[in-house]
């Protein structure tokens, strides 16, 4: 059974009708997935990897048409009727979604949701459905499944929710599970557990897994074979170890080269005057009615000196973004002191703080929403000048915007474009231009590369290094990605539940972590190298 084919895709073509005309998203893709095998489809956004995987379940939008053949356990999903397709979904092919909190219906218990899948495929008694739901929850590692089966999704943590989603996919014992970025929304420590579970699913259930991801570390950790897609076509298919050891296609090589790795760079300690100093910094969000306030940042001390990059690392909910926002006064400080450029943000009025704003630049995480869609890029970059600049500076704004665009390696002509006409990476560059146009002393970069593809991320990080040397700003670099922080930061502060657990030079913190939490964070990081992984996990 283990060698039989779960999925065979032959010459698949998918075209979408969009407002901007037709988009030929997948062209002539052929691939095979055997039972008990994990095949990873990797590629950057727009490469067609998600569309390809979704056709396995017949999940294409109405605006798409597909040709070719997609055999799932012997049945062609492109040729069957809607009713037959319904029979295939769940029973032969199932899906695990990216965001577990939206994949579960919040008003039903998880047991009910698992049973729903069972009831959709044949008559089954209530007691029997419950028994099977409990059984499957136990097998995916939900603690005390007999009681958990009656719980609602919000009673589970993010990682447990993803386990429930996987349980729902497994309950009918499908031939193949399509996992679309199954760990992207999860913290790295939780990601490691889910990857472990998926590996067990493959070994114990003999299920084929089609893994869609952009994370090469996850690929190295989980996949048996890798399919690299680019521009809707397959550029390379190889065994995972061969792909990482000797990639053949030039695109695969650039993709692998762009993956950030922890390399423990030594840096000379930068030290100048203090730009930001936090002492016992506490930030609380008001609680709901009769609930105590939520303490996002709980007594944090740190210093940021001029010319230095401090990496603020932590998982979601650690308070790292809140600290960045507090420095720019987007969030109110509720305790302790936070001196920014000599002014205590916790006590100063906006009037006293306003003149400092021209010395602070901010780069936001999401390039899609960080520009006003109705203003040209040029107008957006010039806004700080318009607000703070002198008469003369405003008169020369156009030239200055052009200079900045060149500094972030965008053509000058882009000043006349609108944000939607730029790609995510280009917008993030423009975002740096806007933050730097007044030559700030302090730059706050809140996950500036998290929303980008790896190769784009690599080029933005390189740009960051270049800009830093030219403009010489101090920077608070907020990220959840240890490999990224290793590339840019002189010092690292690791946050956990609103407290700094460890702080020190980057190479020291990442190379010889003192605290258990830091060690766990580093150990959970999937390494984009299957050989090293094997040695590390002893498999």
């Amino acid at each position, binding site marked *: 059974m283990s060698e039989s084919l779960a999925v065979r895709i032959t010459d698949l073509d998918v075209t979408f009708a*969009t407002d901007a005309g037709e988009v030929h998203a997948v062209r002539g893709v052929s691939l095979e997935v055997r039972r008990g095998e994990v095949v990873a489809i990797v590629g950057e*956004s727009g490469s067609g990897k998600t569309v390809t995987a979704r056709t396995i379940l017949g999940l294409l939008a109405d605006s798409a048409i597909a040709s070719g053949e997609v055999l799932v356990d012997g049945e062609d999903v492109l040729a069957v009727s809607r009713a037959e397709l319904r029979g295939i979904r769940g029973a032969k092919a199932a899906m695990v979604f990216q965001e577990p909190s939206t994949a579960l219906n919040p008003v039903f218990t998880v047991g009910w949701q698992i049973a729903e899948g069972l009831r959709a495929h044949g008559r089954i008694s209530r007691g029997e459905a419950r028994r099977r739901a409990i059984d499957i929850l136990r097998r995916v590692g939900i603690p005390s499944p007999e009681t958990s089966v009656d719980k609602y999704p919000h009673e589970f943590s993010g990682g447990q929710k993803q386990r429930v989603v996987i349980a729902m996919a497994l309950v009918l014992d499908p031939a193949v599970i399509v996992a679309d970025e199954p760990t992207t929304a999860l913290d790295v420590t939780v990601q490691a557990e889910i990857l472990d579970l998926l590996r067990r699913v493959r070994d114990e259930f003999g299920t084929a897994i089609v893994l869609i991801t952009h994370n090469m570390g996850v690929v190295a950790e989980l996949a048996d074979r890798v399919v690299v897609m680019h521009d809707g076509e397959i550029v390379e298919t190889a065994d995972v170890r061969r792909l990482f050891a000797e990639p053949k296609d030039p695109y695969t090589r650039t993709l692998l080269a762009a993956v950030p790795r922890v390399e423990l760079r030594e840096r000379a300690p930068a030290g100048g005057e203090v730009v930001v100093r936090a002492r016992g910094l506490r930030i609380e969000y008001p609680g709901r009615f009769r609930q105590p306030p939520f303490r996002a940042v709980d007594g944090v001390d740190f210093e940021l000196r001029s010319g230095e990059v401090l990496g603020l690392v932590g998982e979601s909910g650690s308070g790292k973004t809140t600290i960045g926002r507090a420095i720019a006064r987007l969030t109110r400080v509720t305790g302790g002191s936070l001196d920014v450029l000599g002014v205590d943000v916790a006590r100063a009025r906006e009037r006293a703080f306003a003149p400092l704003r021209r010395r602070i630049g901010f780069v936001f995480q999401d390039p899609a929403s960080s520009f006003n869609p109705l203003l040209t890029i040029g107008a957006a970059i010039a806004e700080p000048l318009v607000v703070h600049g002198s008469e003369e500076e405003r008169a020369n704004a156009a030239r200055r915007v052009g200079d900045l665009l060149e500094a972030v390696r965008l053509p000058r002509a882009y000043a006349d474009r609108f944000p939607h*006409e730029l*790609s995510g990476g280009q917008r993030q560059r423009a975002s740096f231009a806007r933050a730097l146009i007044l030559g700030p002393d302090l730059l706050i970069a809140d996950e500036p590369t998290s929303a980008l593809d790896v190769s784009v991320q690599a080029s933005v990080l390189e740009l960051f290094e270049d800009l830093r040397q030219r403009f010489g700003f101090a920077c608070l670099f907020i990220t959840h990605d240890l490999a990224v922080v290793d590339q840019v930061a002189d010092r690292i502060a690791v946050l956990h539940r609103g407290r700094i657990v460890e702080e020190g030079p980057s190479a020291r913190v990442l190379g010889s972590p003192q605290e258990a939490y830091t060690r766990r964070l580093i150990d959970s990081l999937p390494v984009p190298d299957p050989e090293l992984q094997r040695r590390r996990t002893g498999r």
Partner: protein
Amino acid sequence: MSGTAVAVRSPWWARLPIVRQIRQSVGVQRFMLVTGLAITLGCIAVAAFAPLIAPYGFNQLRGADGVPFPTHAAPSAAHPWGTTLAGYDVLSRVVFGTQTALLAIVLAVAMSIVVGVLLGLLSGYFGGALDRVLVVVCDAIYAFPTLLLAIVVAIAISHGQSGLWQGVLAAGISITVVYVPQYFRVVRAEVVRIKAEAFVESAKVIGAPTARIMFLHVLRNSLRTLPLIMTLNAVEAFETLAGLGFLGLGIEPSAAAEWGYDLQKAVPDVTSGIWWTAIYPGVAIVVLAVGVTLLGEGLNDLSDPRLRHRRRPVLRARRALPEPPQPGPVEPPAVFPAPKEPL
């Protein structure tokens, strides 16, 4: 990807509000939009050229020769749509009635937009006590029937006898009062959403003045859904005017032509077999309502990408596709995120 990295910008005229939607639409949605637009534009043209189209004035009771018009005359060459009991020419009354209806629409829409949008912006942006009070007041107004309010306003403004402006104002003000909460709700919801977007925070971080953030960044991005409410608002405005006229609180026939008034005066005629006095003003009301509603529905469907129909793509031979153009010197493309359908 077969798409280009940067969407090609269409010429300026193609980006104008309604032109863009027509170019975007196909099938039934295009039919609705185009029909609605044609009827609405037709009505506007009739109103604009009313003195040229109508054979007589709206309050004219005798011909150029001084001979009074016959009463209850059936349609004829002299009076194509007949005359009423009082001797008015029905065609002229209907044509001039368009002017009154459009005047009510413009007034009501303009007043409710200005008030509703400003309140929505303030309430959504600043929040707090102001927001809570305004929301409660608006919810209370929701429960108030339009026509009842219009009657009260009509009596307050004109003490029962109305000229053109009193009648239109009565309808306009009552519609404004009822519609302000709707604009308020929609704009407030959009403002609350937009306020949290990164580009607004980015303007705050820059230190931009509050007024600049509110009007340049927030307001301009919050107005996308307004055309839809505007069309609903428009229909309700002239229907309220007609309703007032029908109840006898509208505009005197000597002051302006008004469909509701004419319809009311035609009620006794219907039983005596005189159809032309009722049918024409009635049809005029229906046509304008249908036209504006179709326009609104068309815009509504198109504004939601999930409801919008698109031309089905034709699958071409793979080989025939040209190589995708390589975008700029900067970095790999980007562009269309893999299409995602709602789960």
